[in-house]
């Protein structure tokens, strides 16, 4: 595709529900990153993938967060038993490869947990 796409663009959920956020990276990009952007804060690194593998999961805030990537393309970030503090914009980025320092960001998914 022309750029990184994310869906849904907005998600409102109730506390305790599970949510799935989807990221479609730029075609051919092997590296994929997830970030969280809270109101008034910078971007917080969550996890990255090289292919389908996630070597470093240390940025995930809790065990309620998980992510997977299939076919070296689409990635899904899952938040189980959502809490109000999970409300944020979740951004996905991709780069040609992990050593590539230029990351291209999607528009984000705005998650609101009521």
């Amino acid at each position, binding site marked *: 595709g022309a750029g990184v796409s994310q869906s849904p663009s907005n998600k409102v959920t109730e506390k305790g529900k599970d949510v799935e956020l989807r990221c479609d990276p730029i075609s051919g990009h092997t590296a994929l990153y997830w970030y969280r952007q809270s109101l008034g804060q*910078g971007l*917080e*690194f969550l996890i*990255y993938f090289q292919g389908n593998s996630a*070597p470093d999961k240390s940025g995930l805030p809790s065990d309620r967060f998980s992510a997977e990537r299939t076919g070296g393309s689409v990635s899904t970030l899952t938040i189980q038993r959502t809490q109000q503090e999970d409300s944020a914009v979740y951004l996905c980025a991709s*780069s040609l490869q992990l050593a590539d*320092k*230029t990351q*291209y960001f999607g528009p*984000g998914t705005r998650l609101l947990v009521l």
Partner: protein
Amino acid sequence: QQQVKQSPQSLIVQKGGISIINCAYENTAFDYFPWYQQFPGKGPALLIAIRPDVSEKKEGRFTISFNKSAKQFSLHIMDSQPGDSATYFCAASSFTGTASKLTFGTGTRLQVTL
């Protein structure tokens, strides 16, 4: 621990003026310093970047000044325009051996007035 400190938090500049945003870092392993521009409802987009072996980089109206000894770098926007009104993030990248990881500042909201 905030590894990249950004200031100011917000900035108002008149059209035609110079906008200056400053960042400071702590980790000497950082080897790439990009600036991202983010418009409301959009993901961050790479604006300009510099490597530590260069003291200045200019692209059009945007200039990065880099002071390696002081561990500081700044973005200058010359002849600021209302269309430049956005949030700007500085970032720093380090290669961990498996991936290039970006650490972001907390952002500066720039408003350019007529």
